[in-house]
């Protein structure tokens, strides 16, 4: 339907696929750390549960509500971190944040699908939606729990 260009940049087919069939959504795991994330501007919320075993993400689950971008990003994030160690997961968060700034897909392993979100950088209002799950993941892994918001005072 969309005009070629703008809409396709944002709503890539792979994003809609993750939105319609989110992976690792609401699954029951035995978490070793969890964190809550909120985007106060739009009321979106996400909870990330992580089971870290010997420093490796053995299981991960997300729950919450949000727009297609935040849900798809969360779903992709869980696929990315599953089976990686904590340091690699945090490198992924770093790379994702960088991608939101530059609009360029980073050259890191496992980001093939995630690169579809690079177009979000062109929609400043949606960057917070896409970043929510990643920030929350970093909180869970690096801080062991707690909560984060995407509202850092900037508009």
């Amino acid at each position, binding site marked *: 339907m969309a005009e070629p260009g703008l*809409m396709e940049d944002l709503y890539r087919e792979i994003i809609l696929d993750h939105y319609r069939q989110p992976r690792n959504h609401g699954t029951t795991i035995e978490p070793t750390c969890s964190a809550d994330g909120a985007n106060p501007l739009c009321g979106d919320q996400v909870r990330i549960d992580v089971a870290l075993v010997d420093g490796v993400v053995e299981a991960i689950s997300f729950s919450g509500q949000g727009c297609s971008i935040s849900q798809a990003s969360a779903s992709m994030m869980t696929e990315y971190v599953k089976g990686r160690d904590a340091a690699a997961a945090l490198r992924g968060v770093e790379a994702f944040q960088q991608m939101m700034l530059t609009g360029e897909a980073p050259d890191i392993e496992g980001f093939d699908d995630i690169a579809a979100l690079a177009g979000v950088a062109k929609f400043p209002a*949606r960057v917070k939606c896409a970043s929510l799950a990643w920030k929350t993941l970093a909180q869970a892994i690096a801080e062991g729990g707690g909560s984060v918001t995407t509202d850092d005072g900037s508009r």
Partner: protein
Amino acid sequence: MTSLADLPAVERLPYDIARIRRDFPILKREVASGARLVYLDNAATSQRPVQVLAEITRFYRDHNANIHRGVHTLSVEATDLYEQARAKVARFIGAADPREIIFTRNTTESINLVAHGWARKFLQPGDEVVISEIEHHSNIVPWQMLRDERGITLKYIPMLPDGTLDLDAARSIITGRTRLVSLTAMSNALGTIVPLDAIVARAKAVGALVLVDGAQSVPHMPVDVRTLGVDFLAFSGHKMLAPFGIGILWGRLPLLESMDPFMGGGDMILTVSMERSTWADVPAKFEAGTPNVGDAVALGAAVDYLSALGMDAVRQHERAITDYALRRLADVPGVSIFGVPDAERRGGVISFALEGVHPHDIGQVLDTKGVAIRTGHHCAQPVMLALNVPATARASFYIYNTTDEVDALASGLEEVSRFFGVRK
């Protein structure tokens, strides 16, 4: 789709919209996707007609000077224009005296002025301020701050599931300890028009003052402070064709005279010695520092524009558009509309949900069709909590919107549905 014969026809709209639209060149522009703009975010801010834009230019080009200070020609002219604008606003809302009009930046500042100048001076711990669950944050937060600072009690009139206020509850919530009832005349999140009469009567019976947040009523319907019977009225120029940065507080003169100033500085004093100062008269007492003269003058032009249309006609037009939109949107599969079902008790605001699609995504896809709506909590988080949704999509209308634009919204929503499909 219901047959269009059931819907109010464009002919029955009270004025020639094509002529109005020519005054708003921005309505001809295209958005990023190349689609023609369909501006349906008027509850956030209105567009401005060329008459208002010309007035801004004319002021700065021909009359610009600081006011109240100079004896020179420009200063006298600027002062006159500023005071004429005040008189226009006074007439527009039926105020007895232009001195009852205080220029602020916006509704938010006007409400804060009352919280600081009146409530902080006169309220004691245990005194009650009554607001409602459908208020904009600007009529919640100042009272929460005052509660925390002064120990007053803050009470809320609850919202019923249809978005109206629980008037029965209001009767018992407003008590002998209530000193102020501060209410919106129309909800920006749901469009509910609040039946102020009943609440004002109850407030007066217990001796409380009434502040009306008129941010969504003054731009859209006739408002006359003589018949409202209230004590304060706050509203914003930017929602009624005027520039950003100019707002209004109306208050009864004796009340304003009894109040303390909000800010201290130049223009609000009578005398200043090293030890103390005495305050200037109302309204100067509340307009510390150099005011926003140019935008106040442009607000005068906006008031002229609306007065020429007639506020009855403005309301009639919005009721017709809203009635049309309520029926048209009800026909779109998956759409559910929040709030009162009829346009009679609703201003030109429609908050809605589309099954399986988050408001952000609705707004984003509509933007590619040129349709500008608002998504989010609309600075009314208690309403979202009561509706049990994180956010809504909101379309809001003004004098220049057409039934064609409502059709563009409706068909845009049908495409949104198709695009996202229904979630599993």
